[in-house]
């Protein structure tokens, strides 16, 4: 075992045992700061001794015994031994062989209570949230200062200072080492729960920081919650918090895209929810109910999470139940955010009007000013009610408020969808619908011109004032037959495409039911006439970064020369007339000519070769399949690029075939 291995082993034992050790020491010496120092001494001793002596059989007990010995030494030095400690020191001195295990038992009768006391102390309300979190992770989670700093994206000295100050505050206030009783208890407990949930949420929702560490924070919070549930089993809210965290953690694998973009609950792949954690969540919720008492905020939030976990698909979600739970939650936790969530649940359960009514009451809420979810929820509800223009404004407002980039993109997309949907509110005649359809921003001018011809013909034949619902597919078929029945198949298909697009658009906006092109069959276009790639696509292709020289030269040559693919691939270096921008075909009877684009690239492609195929494959041929001598480059040993391979590469890159590169 190397010393690095031992260090990690010591660290692992430390994380498992530190809470028990420190808690026991605080009871002995009465001061959190001193207890931690003594515990650190024990840890140092382990780091020094274990690499040589090997890890002891019961490492936890070893650490505990050393720590206690240090504590007793300290108390002796400071002459503060009371009877109890005297007794302990005596036991330790007289029973050296069995001391470790027995003393453990002697001291550990109520070690669980000590850990619980330690939790209450480190989450003391006199400390700031930052200090509570840092102290709790350090004392109860055994995390090193450096680990806490990394998890919260702050510097190590900052964390160290928070811990030191927190310890001093606790000493100054003489905070007793006890589990509070009476009316104080509920308040102090809610402070502990808050700290644990804060740690969990830092791990669960933070938008920055290392994923792995954040996962660890969630796990640490869960561990603390489960520990607390074991120590305080009669508190319903503790089980509620554990249930809430288990259920939320069960979704962690499903809640983000591989790139980190969040996935909304209703769109998550429920197959990726962790059923082991779901089951633990349900068990914890059951314990909460068994513990009884009034329903607190954590139990209610867990019950809501459980409703989601129970639904095998988003559609099966029991929204009525969730809305009812939110109504109860709003009573014990009357915050605007809870009301907003309740509005969402109400909308899902009883329709968008119900949700919007509640959401509208929150507009004056100062706490929600600047909170992007209010406009985003309102936008969603307005869109569902068909109030697209208002919805668009809300989505745009939400997008401006959120700091999360992926979320902003989603919101702007929704705003654009609303903007598109808002146009047809102008009316329902054929002319109005056609104008709105052609007026969409996403259409390019060529499409507008082409669709415009088709729709123009329909308007002339049917009349501008005809309501769109009065247009029937049979009538459209008649018009088509008389206008383009004799035209080329491609022309017929182009007009047919325009009508299909128009009627899909009108259908999506509720202006039309049924397909106006249903009587129009697609006509077979004669083969052999390939449609060239449109100029804008070609321009984009030449601009594409990372394109290989061979590909760029071959594609440009095919485009500029309009020569058959086979003869271009058959070109040999010795047949090129670079200055004349042309090359002799293999048959030797014809010339292939190109223009400046290709001419610029060819010297680089030839790269000093004097003969052999111009376009070469990437690899040398295998020994089993020697190519014909004419297809082998004598200088590089590579074979001529085959038609199949060239075609495959182009198809992969563009989705088109090489022959479509030919200009008309």
């Amino acid at each position, binding site marked *: 075992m190397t010393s690095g291995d031992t260090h*990690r082993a010591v*660290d692992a034992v430390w994380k498992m045992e530190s809470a028990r050790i420190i808690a026991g020491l605080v009871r002995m010496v009465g001061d959190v700061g001193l207890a931690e120092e003594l515990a650190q001494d024990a840890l140092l001793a382990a780091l020094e001794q274990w690499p040589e002596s090997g890890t002891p059989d019961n490492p936890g007990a070893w650490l505990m015994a050393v720590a206690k010995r240090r504590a007793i030494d300290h108390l002796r030095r400071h002459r503060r031994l009371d009877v109890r400690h005297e007794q302990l020191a005596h036991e330790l001195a007289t029973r050296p062989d069995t001391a470790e295990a027995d003393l453990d038992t002697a001291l550990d009768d109520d070690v669980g209570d000590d850990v619980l006391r330690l939790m209450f102390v480190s989450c003391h309300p006199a400390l700031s949230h930052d200090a509570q979190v840092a102290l709790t992770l350090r004392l109860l989670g055994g995390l090193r200062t450096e680990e806490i700093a990394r998890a919260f994206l702050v510097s190590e000295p900052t964390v160290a200072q928070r811990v030191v100050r927190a310890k001093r505050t606790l000493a100054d206030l003489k905070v007793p080492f006890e589990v509070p009783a009476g009316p104080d208890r509920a308040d102090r407990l809610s402070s502990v729960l808050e700290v644990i949930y804060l740690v969990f949420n830092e791990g669960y929702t933070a938008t920055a920081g290392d994923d792995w560490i954040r996962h660890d924070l969630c796990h640490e919070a869960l561990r603390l919650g489960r520990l607390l549930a074991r120590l305080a089993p009669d508190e319903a809210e503790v089980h509620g918090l554990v249930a809430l965290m288990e259920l939320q953690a069960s979704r962690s*694998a499903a809640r983000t895209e591989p790139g980190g973009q969040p996935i909304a609950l209703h769109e998550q792949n429920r197959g990726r929810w962790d059923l082991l954690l779901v089951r633990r969540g349900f068990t914890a919720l059951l314990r909460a109910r068994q513990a009884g008492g009034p329903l607190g905020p954590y139990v209610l939030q867990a019950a809501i999470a459980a409703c989601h976990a129970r639904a095998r698909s988003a559609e099966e979600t029991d929204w009525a139940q969730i809305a009812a739970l939110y109504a109860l939650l709003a009573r014990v936790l009357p915050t605007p955010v809870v009301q907003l969530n309740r509005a969402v649940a109400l909308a899902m359960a009883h329709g968008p009007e119900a949700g919007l009514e509640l959401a509208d009451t929150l507009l004056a809420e100062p706490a929600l000013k600047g909170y992007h979810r209010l406009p985003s929820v309102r936008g969603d509800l307005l869109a569902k009610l068909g109030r697209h223009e208002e919805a668009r404004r809300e989505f745009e407002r939400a997008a401006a408020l959120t700091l999360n980039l992926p979320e902003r993109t989603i919101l702007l997309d929704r705003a654009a969808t609303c903007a598109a949907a808002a146009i047809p509110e102008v009316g329902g005649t054929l002319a109005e619908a056609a104008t709105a359809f052609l007026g969409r921003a996403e259409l390019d001018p060529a499409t507008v011109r082409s669709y415009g011809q088709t729709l123009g013909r329909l308007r002339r034949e049917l009349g501008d004032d005809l309501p769109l619902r009065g247009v029937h597919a049979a009538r459209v078929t008649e018009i088509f037959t008389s206008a383009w029945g004799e035209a080329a198949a491609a022309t017929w298909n182009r007009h047919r495409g325009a009508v299909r697009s128009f009627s899909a658009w009108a259908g999506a906006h509720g202006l039309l039911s049924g397909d106006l092109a249903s009587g129009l069959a697609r006509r077979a276009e004669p083969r052999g006439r390939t449609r060239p790639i449109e100029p804008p696509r070609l321009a984009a292709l030449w601009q594409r970064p990372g394109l290989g020289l061979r590909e760029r030269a071959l594609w440009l040559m095919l485009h500029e020369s309009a020569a058959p693919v086979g003869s271009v691939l058959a070109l040999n270096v010795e047949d090129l007339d670079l200055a004349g921008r042309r090359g002799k075909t293999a048959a030797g009877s014809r010339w292939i000519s190109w223009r400046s684009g290709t001419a610029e690239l060819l010297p680089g492609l030839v790269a000093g070769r004097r003969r052999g195929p111009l376009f070469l494959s990437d690899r040398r041929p295998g020994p089993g399949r020697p190519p014909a001598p004419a297809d082998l480059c004598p200088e590089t040993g590579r074979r001529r690029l085959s038609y199949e391979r060239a075609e495959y590469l182009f198809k992969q890159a563009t989705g088109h075939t090489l022959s479509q590169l030919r200009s008309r």
Partner: protein
Amino acid sequence: MRFLMTTKANGAAPPDEAVYAEMGRFVEEMTQAGVLLATGGLDPVGVRVTATDGTITVTDGPFAEAKEAIVSFALIEARSQEEAVELSRRFWKIIGTGEGSIQQVFGP
């Protein structure tokens, strides 16, 4: 991190009641702490399924020597491999004699 701990049949006599009771306490404590996610005993005989280029062969066991068969498993959640090792130490301390392995589980 999740780890799968497995134990092999060791041919030793079945544990006595005291060991059972102690193991019961250990399992309960680990479950409550959220460390132990799932556990169970396995039939050492089993059925073997082999697939070769889509051809599937099913054979009834036993296959290896009895002491090589895996007879129990525990799925645990730990913060590090060292913690998993330490937990397994505690487990084997109760059992006394035997053999097993610890493997990290990737996913879900």
